[in-house]
């Protein structure tokens, strides 16, 4: 997606806000569909590109609602968003709901599901798959960067900050609750680094509360014992 097109998408973002148009939400939604059609047709069916050096977009190009709309709307034809943009978005918006939706959208792209299919199969066979053995995804890479301070894109340097950040994103992943999210969490649970301890404790608490209420986690890869 070109920068111009992305800036045009700012209009979309504004339309997503209730009351943005004089008319009704139905009108806004239809208007949105028209804009999307024009955006896509301007790219001759190649799909939107949000990854790569030739896509000079930044998190500031769209308001957060616009990013959520765009990221959740990506199809198999569109590229995955670059991890750099997701890093920026996550850093720029400390609001937890926005972060939850960024995390969810980051692993909802069909390409992530395809990459994770094998690992999810291995987890279902009760094989151990560490975080570093999992295929790339933005939350997996982000977690590895927090656990390993030498890695790139480490957003917080203090041990306590990084431990808190790992715990925070782990809760988003529990809330997202997809197979891919649980595969990442299963990998996190096998990390022995002290920095993951608060996160592991948190995940245990959520799962234990559910199990104590009689819920069986048999369908969740990596958590089914």
């Amino acid at each position: 997606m070109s920068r111009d097109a992305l800036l045009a998408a700012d209009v979309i973002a504004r339309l997503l806000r209730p009351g943005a148009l004089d008319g009704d939400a139905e009108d806004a939604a239809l208007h949105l569909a028209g804009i999307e059609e024009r955006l896509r047709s301007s790219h001759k069916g190649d799909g939107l590109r949000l990854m790569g050096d030739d896509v000079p977009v930044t998190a500031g190009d769209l308001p957060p609602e616009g990013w959520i709309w765009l990221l959740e709307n990506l199809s198999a034809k569109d590229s995955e968003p670059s991890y750099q943009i997701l890093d920026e978005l996550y850093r720029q918006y400390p609001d937890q709901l926005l972060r939850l939706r960024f995390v969810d959208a980051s692993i909802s792209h069909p390409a992530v599901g395809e990459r994770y299919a094998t690992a999810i199969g291995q987890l279902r066979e009760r094989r151990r798959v560490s975080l570093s053995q999992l295929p790339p995804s933005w939350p997996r890479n982000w977690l590895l960067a927090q656990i390993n301070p030498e890695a790139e894109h480490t957003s917080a340097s203090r041990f306590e900050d990084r431990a808190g950040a790992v715990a925070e994103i782990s809760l988003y992943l529990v809330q997202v609750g997809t197979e891919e999210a649980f595969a990442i969490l299963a990998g996190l649970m096998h990390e022995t680094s002290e920095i993951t301890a608060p996160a592991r404790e948190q995940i245990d608490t959520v799962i234990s509360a559910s199990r104590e209420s009689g819920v069986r986690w048999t369908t969740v890869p990596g958590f089914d014992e």
Partner: protein
Amino acid sequence: MSRRIRPTPVDSAIRRAIATSTGQGLFGILGISATDPAANWVIKYTSPLYGGEYPPAPRAVGAAARTALHISTATDFTWGTGCYVSPVIYPFSGAIYGRCGIVAKFDPKDWNIFDASSPLNVDLYMQWVDWQPLKPLLMLTVHANLANQYLRNSFRETFNVDCVVFPPDEVNPHYTRHSTHRWLAVSDWASPGRLQKGKLSGRFSDPKLVVVVAEDFEKVRGGLGRRTLIGPQAVPFNPPVTPADLVMAHRSGQIVTVSP
């Protein structure tokens, strides 16, 4: 792939509720026979700006977006992202949203249905929300619309709900009745367990402008109601227009004008 699988203690009860509604079928829930001539038809109202020419001329701006009914991604829609329609048996229920009624055909056979017009089912949804790990965040955020949209989309994705049947939540005494009318939030799937969020709905076919209502509305009571600005002073409309009339008009390419 990308299916939501986190279990909660109310999942079984929700699945039973969906199985019951699905067993009844949409027409059963709506209290109509599948042989009713209006059964397989829906209507969606919008303003003349978008609905005045539907489908539009092929080269019109944004024409492709009006070759089908669209999926609404606005954050303030009742049951999240989806295609919102009224069964045509409530021909004017959605007229509070615009003068132009677009009529389209559909087939709800094999749809998984969540009947949110049942208080028991709504209670199940609320119990499911209680079990969301981030419930405090989702309930207390300043971004209430974003949170509600997220929860309702997640619920529909978790339980593969093709259609939510719900009572209108914006009302008008002449057009839109909370107690007797039902609206539908219909899902399109991008992949198994993941809603399509945007673009056109593949659930409805042959959408055409069929009704023009000579009325305008004003939001009242903070958006909970819509006040008619012209009339009607009483139902039925004059002359009365039935759902079957609208289906006939769709087939014959006529536009029915309804005056208060």
